[in-house]
């Protein structure tokens, strides 16, 4: 059974995920497959763009954030996916050599009205570089399975003073 269920999340909870090193090769490989613009593909061409040098596709940053959150939080959980992201902001370029990490803050949780086996966790995901600069921030509604009734008393919420 996974470690984390919907009952394990609470407003104000903070989870740190990562780090992940970004290489020029990976920036270019993702861009060649999904976002073949000069600023993501080639150092020299990127210098002539508004970005002033090679930087990761914003979708690549989303994907890297997902990987860090998967390893740090989601894979050992009853995750049922996500319905979407009300807002995604790309705040600063992600450059080759950057070391990224993700700070997840739970904003609120609520049970599903229509599906008693699951609940929602609304969270903010800030992706930061090694200088502590936020390169991306997004909010997302995640879905998690509820803890099976037999072990409900083992949850941190039930054990809290």
């Amino acid at each position: 059974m996974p470690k984390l269920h919907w009952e394990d999340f609470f407003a104000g909870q903070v989870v740190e995920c990562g780090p992940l090193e970004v290489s020029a090769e990976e920036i270019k490989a993702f861009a060649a497959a999904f976002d073949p613009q000069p600023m993501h593909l080639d150092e020299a061409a990127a210098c002539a763009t508004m970005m002033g040098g090679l930087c990761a596709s914003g979708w690549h940053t989303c994907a890297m954030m997902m990987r860090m959150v998967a390893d740090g939080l989601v894979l050992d959980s009853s995750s049922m996916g996500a319905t979407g992201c009300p807002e995604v902001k790309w705040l600063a370029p992600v450059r080759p050599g950057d070391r990224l990490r993700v700070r997840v803050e739970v904003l609120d949780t609520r049970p599903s009205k229509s599906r008693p086996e699951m609940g929602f966790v609304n969270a903010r995901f800030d992706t930061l570089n090694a200088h502590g600069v936020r390169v991306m921030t997004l909010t997302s509604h995640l879905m998690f399975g509820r803890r099976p009734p037999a072990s409900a008393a083992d949850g941190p919420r039930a054990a809290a003073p």
Partner: protein
Amino acid sequence: MRYFEDMRVGERADLGSHTFTADEIKAFARRYDPQRFHVDEAAAARTHFGALCASGWHTAAVFMRHFVEAEQRDAEALRAGGETPAQAGPSPGIRDLRWPRPVYAGDTISFVREVTELRAQTTRPGWGLVVGRNTGTNQDGALVLAFFGAKFVQRRDTRDGGRS
């Protein structure tokens, strides 16, 4: 790509379609989103999804490739007419990204872009901001991806002095 002045609110572009194979769904997911319903058919069959399905980030990334390829076709058309295409600017972000239904292996998703807003005045001289509603729809007509994307686009009237 085209210049800011060449775009109109309400214009709609079919960006083409893509059939998601099980192999590419798993390859993307192993690298970026290795949840069981994205990497393993048998495990996915036991989840609420019922079958292997693509990471939502994969669906969005494939949309982006179609979007950029359409911009490249626009650039070629400008070059063919003897004009220098506009520079592509970055995106400050997106709003209301939704994955209303899963993209299953074998699904063919058609992508569409509609311009919803043109903001001439931005913090970057020489550039306008274009906002569009972007969607992906499967072969049964069901929406699988929707978001409002924003992107800086070079202005025709300042293209010589837009960058310093």
